[in-house]
């Protein structure tokens, strides 16, 4: 088991965002979190990456308890988070965006070139845009950059928050194909997806969240057959 979350509780001020979440992620899996807005998906991701602190519960990564670590230490340990809304640095060029994400390991005589090549191979469009400023990219390109940037920190576990949001269907397909490729190269992936069809299509396992709790978890194949799920999350 790569990442294990036990009874995680998170509060925003007086509001309880996560009631008690437990989940496990194994090496080389694609795990999807689905659920309505406000169910606690993003909160879960933000807590894993250290932006939020849990009120109780634990997060264990490769046998180490990481829930009190500072964000940069978590990143350095190999957990990389692509935030919702892409959040690329608008005033940096594509290359600079990619470079700043290497700060946990670069600069100790290690070249960033191999990583850069890897990203450019995954997203050839970015190579054409190397010296363009972040804000001038289109939505799809920004999403590619956001994923590529996260790849630059040499992650072992990649967390993706709503990568399909606001993208045209064909682009979404392309990006998910790339995610699949990334996964096949050995990376574990934890993703949040609004589009349950898509999640079930690409993920190995799925957790369904409602009101800050895991209400159901199973393999994607099983869930796709589940009539209850069919009814409330998938269109028919």
């Amino acid at each position: 088991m790569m990442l294990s979350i036990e009874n995680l509780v998170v509060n925003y001020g007086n509001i309880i965002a996560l009631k008690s979440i437990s989940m496990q992620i194994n090496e080389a899996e694609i795990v999807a979190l689905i659920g309505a807005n406000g169910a606690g998906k993003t909160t879960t991701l933000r807590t894993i990456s250290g932006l939020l602190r849990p009120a109780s519960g634990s997060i264990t990564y490769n046998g180490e308890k990481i829930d009190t670590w500072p964000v940069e230490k978590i990143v350095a340990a190999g957990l990389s988070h692509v935030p919702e809304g892409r959040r690329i640095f608008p005033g940096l060029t594509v290359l600079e965006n990619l470079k700043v994400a290497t700060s946990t390991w670069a600069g100790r005589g290690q070249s960033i070139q191999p990583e850069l090549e890897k990203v450019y191979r995954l997203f050839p469009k970015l190579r054409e845009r190397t010296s363009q400023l972040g804000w001038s990219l289109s939505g799809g390109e920004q999403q590619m950059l956001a994923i590529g940037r996260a790849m630059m920190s040499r992650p072992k576990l990649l967390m993706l928050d709503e990568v399909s949001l606001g993208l045209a269907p064909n682009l979404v397909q392309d990006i998910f194909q790339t995610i699949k490729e990334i996964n096949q190269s050995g990376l574990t992936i934890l993703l949040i997806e609004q589009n349950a069809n898509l999640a079930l299509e690409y993920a190995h396992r799925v957790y369904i969240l409602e009101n800050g709790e895991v209400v159901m978890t199973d393999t994607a194949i099983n869930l796709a057959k589940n009539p209850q799920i069919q009814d409330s999350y998938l269109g028919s």
Partner: protein
Amino acid sequence: MTFILETRQLCKQFGGVHALRPFDFKISPGEIRALIGPNGAGKTTFLNLLSGIYTPTDGDILFKGQQITKIKPHVVTRLGVGRTFQTVKPFGKLSVLENVMLGYDCRAEKGIFHILIKSSSAKQEEEETKEKARKALGFVGMLDKQNMIITSLPYGQQRLVDLARALVHDPDLLLLDEPAAGMTRQEGSDLVACIRRIRDLGITVLLVEHNMRLVMDVSDRITVLDFGYLIAEGIPEEIRSNPKVIEAYLGKKTNDAIN
């Protein structure tokens, strides 16, 4: 005048980038029209041109036969165009009701002196605004939340309030920018019903949307844009089988899924 909205050779450039190529577009009154296309196709640009946020580089916009090409957004709104946004930016500190009231304030006439002396006509006007706003909230099914601070609502409900805000001043044309984004499936199908009811009020609806199921479900006609060019227009069935559309936009798999 057969069209409620008509654009003639409307185009927009940002610097050297053509966000929208010369575009002729017409909607008949009472229609529900969807505008689809890949990201960067110029859909939001088009809506922004219509609502006066952008000034076109060239071309004309006619609304109810009247030129509105270089008119400021608030005037366009007063003429009878309602508009929602892709990402809702609610007015934070205000309650749900006040958010909606704001949409009707453009119809208010009593000036600042009436407010200072709290004249009875100003009070009456405020009551009327409140009444209108409650009605609009009732229409989208959010009346029970009227006193909540808007930011405390879930995202999908904020979108509904935004819709009420765009409706409250009785527009003739409603522009919806990705109304279903961030909504659950249930909320999505409620939305479809809601859009239909809006049409039944006699309001023409133009929506930009990525959720194909919703688009196919609700629209009378669909217009497809790709990188600033119009590539197809027609009823949903035609669009679904149009090979150009499938190639540029839907992708084979999605198309299969929809069918």
